C-alpha cells in the first residue's frame, strides 16, 4: 500500500504533448479516478505510472521511491486492461499464477495464493477453464485476481468496465468498489464515463489536452467546477453556460427552477426562459429552451419535477439561487471567484 505521486510529468509523442506537466499525488488506500474524454492523456499517464511508457520529463514516485526507468516488475504495480488481456492459451489458474511464476515463487505457495485470490473474487469454480469459456464479467474477475495475486503496492485500472454491458457494469462497479475497500490498495482508475467516476472515486482528476483541469472530490468537481471544461464535461445534462461580454454565468439544470419556488433569502437571479420543448423522462422532466437577453443559439436546459406544469412554446420566469451561480472568465474559461 503506497502513495503514488507524479511531478511535472510530461510525455511528448512526435510534437504533441499527450501529458503536459502534470502534478498529482494520491493518498494511501485511495480510489483515485482519472477522468477525461478520449485522447486527453489519461491512459498515457497511467501507462507511465505503470512503467509501460517512459516519461519525456518529470518524476514518478511510488511509496516515496523514485521509479523513473524501472520496469513494472520492480514498481510492484498491477494493472487491469480494458480488454483484460488474459492469456488465451492458459487456464484461469495458470493465468492467475503467471506473475508468481515470473517472480519465481515455489509451486505450493503459487497454488495457495492462486486459490486465495480466486476465492476472494468468487472464481474458484473456473480455475481449469480457459478465458474464452468465460463471460465478460468472469474474465474481468480473472484479470483482477491476476492483478491481486502478487499483492501489489498499487492497482492501475484502465477502463476495466467498458467492455461489459450496461446491466453487468453496474454490478461490476459495486463488486470492484467493495473489493478495493477490502484489500485497501491504492487504486488509480481511468475512465471516460463521468457516472463511473462520480460513483466510484474518492477523488477525481479531470483531464483534458494532457493537463489536469481540476482535482477534487466528486462534490467539489460537480458543484464547484474550476473552469468551463469541467463544468460542461461533468453532469448530465451539463451545466448551462450563458455568455455575456465580460463573464460567463453557469448554473446546473436542477438549480434552474420557476421563480415562484424560491424564498427571499435565496437571493435568486431571474431569467426569462422560453421553453421550446419538454421531455418526459419518468423521474424528471427536462425543459429545453433559450433565455431572453442572451444569444439565441445558447441552449438552456432546466430539470424540473415531472408534475410541474410548464407549457411548451411559452416564456416563463425562472431563477437560480445566488449560491448556485458560477462565474467564468469568457476568454480563458477559468472560474472567477469572489465578487468579480
Amino acid at each position: 500500500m503506497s502513495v503514488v505521486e507524479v511531478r511535472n510529468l510530461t510525455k511528448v509523442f512526435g510534437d504533441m504533448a499527450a501529458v503536459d506537466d502534470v502534478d498529482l499525488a494520491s493518498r494511501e488506500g485511495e480510489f483515485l479516478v482519472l477522468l477525461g474524454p478520449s485522447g486527453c492523456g489519461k491512459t498515457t499517464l497511467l501507462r507511465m505510472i505503470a512503467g509501460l511508457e517512459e516519461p519525456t520529463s518529470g518524476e514518478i514516485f511510488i511509496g516515496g521511491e523514485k521509479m523513473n526507468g524501472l520496469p513494472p516488475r520492480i514498481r510492484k504495480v498491477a494493472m487491469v486492461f480494458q480488454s483484460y488481456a488474459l492469456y488465451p492459451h492458459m487456464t484461469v489458474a495458470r493465468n492467475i499464477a503467471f506473475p508468481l511464476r515470473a517472480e519465481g515463487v515455489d509451486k505450493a505457495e503459487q497454488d495457495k495464493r492462486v486459490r486465495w485470490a480466486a476465492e476472494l473474487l468468487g472464481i474458484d469454480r473456473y480455475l481449469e477453464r480457459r478465458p474464452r469459456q468465460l463471460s465478460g464479467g468472469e474474465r474481468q474477475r480473472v484479470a483482477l485476481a491476476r492483478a491481486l495475486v502478487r499483492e501489489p503496492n498499487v492497482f492501475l485500472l484502465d477502463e476495466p468496465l467498458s467492455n461489459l454491458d450496461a446491466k453487468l457494469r453496474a454490478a461490476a462497479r459495486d463488486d470492484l468498489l467493495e473489493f478495493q475497500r477490502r484489500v485497501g490498495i491504492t487504486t488509480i482508475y481511468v475512465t471516460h464515463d463521468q457516472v463511473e467516476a462520480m460513483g466510484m472515486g474518492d477523488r477525481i482528476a479531470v483531464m483534458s489536452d494532457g493537463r489536469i483541469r481540476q482535482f477534487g472530490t466528486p462534490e467539489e468537481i460537480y458543484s464547484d467546477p474550476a473552469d468551463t471544461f469541467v463544468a460542461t464535461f461533468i453532469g448530465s445534462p451539463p451545466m448551462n453556460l450563458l455568455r455575456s461580454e465580460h463573464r460567463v454565468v453557469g448554473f446546473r439544470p436542477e438549480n434552474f427552477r420557476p421563480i415562484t419556488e424560491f424564498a427571499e433569502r435565496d437571493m435568486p437571479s431571474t431569467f426569462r426562459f422560453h421553453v421550446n420543448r419538454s421531455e418526459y423522462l419518468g423521474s424528471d422532466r427536462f425543459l429545453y429552451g433559450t433565455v431572453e437577453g442572451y444569444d439565441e443559439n445558447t441552449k438552456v436546459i432546466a430539470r424540473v419535477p415531472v408534475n410541474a406544469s410548464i407549457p411548451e412554446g411559452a416564456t416563463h420566469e425562472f431563477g437560480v439561487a445566488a449560491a448556485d451561480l458560477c462565474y467564468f472568465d469568457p476568454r480563458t474559461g477559468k472560474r472567477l471567484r469572489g465578487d468579480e
Partner: protein
Amino acid sequence: MSDEALAIGVRTQRPRRTLLDSERLLAIGGLTPAVIYIVALVGFPFVLAVVMAFSDVTVGDPSLDLVGLETLRQVLADPVFWRALRNTLVFTLISNALVVILATALALILTKDFKGKWLVRLLVLLPWTTPVSLATISWLWTLDSIFSPIDWVLRQLGMLEGNMIWLGQPKLALASVIAVHTWRIVPLAAVIVMAGMLAIPTEIRDASDIDGAGFWRRTFEIEIPLMAPIIGVAVLFGVILSVTDMTVVHVLTRGGPTNYTQVLASWAFYKGIEGGDLAQGAGTALFLLPVLVAVAALILRFARRREVL
C-alpha cells in the same frame, strides 16, 4: 400527394429484376472459369499421370497400354528411387526445422523498432521475390568448385587450403541443397510468422510486462504459444515448397554426385522427361501424392480452426 398517387408512384418506380439478380446464375457464372481452369490444368494432368503410372508409355512408344502394377514395381526396384524418397524426407524435415527457428527469430527481430528496419525487411524479403531458378543459379556460382567466393574468403582467413568443392562431395552437396532450400523458404515463413506476431494484441504484451515476465518467458510462454497455429501454417507452406521443388536440385547438382542428392521431384523429371520413360516418371511422382494430401488436409483443418476462433 394523395395515397393513390403515392401508390402509383411506388409501382412505376420499382426497378426491374435483371439476370444478375439471380443468385443461381451468378453462382454458375462466377464458378465456371475457376472450374474450367482447375479441370484443364490440374484435374486432367493429374488423372493422366495416374493412368500413365499404370501403363508402359514412353516417348518412343506413346500408346497407352495398361500394365497393372508392373511400372510401379520397376520404380520401386530402383535403389535411386529409395535414395530420392529418403532425401525428400530428410530435406523437408531438416530445412523446415531450420525454417521454423530462423523465421521465428527473424520475425521477433523484424517486429522490434530499430533504425533501418525497412532496409532489413527489404533484404530479408528479396530471396522470396527472386525467381527460384535465378536465385539458385547465383548459388551455383557462389558454390562453384573453383571460383567460389566462400572458398576465397575462407582462404583469406587462413581457414582453408585449396577448394571445398561444395557440390562435388556427397555430404557437402546434401548440406548445400538443404541450405539453399532453407534460404529460399525463410523469408515467406518469416513474413507469415511476423503477421501472426503483429496480430497478438499489445495489451497481452503489456500485461506480460506488468506481470514481470522477461524476454525469454514472454517469448516462450506467451508469444510462441499464441503464434503456434500461424507457425503451423508457415510450416505447411514450407513443406509443400520443399517436397515438390526440383529446381534447387536440378540447378545445383542435377541430382549428383552420382544421384546422391536426388529427390522425388527431380528423379521423376529425369526418368520421365529427360529419360523419356513417361510411365516411370509418372509412377515416381505419384509417391508425392500421400505427402501432399496429408499437408492439404492439415492446411484445411488449420484454416477451419482459425475461422472458429
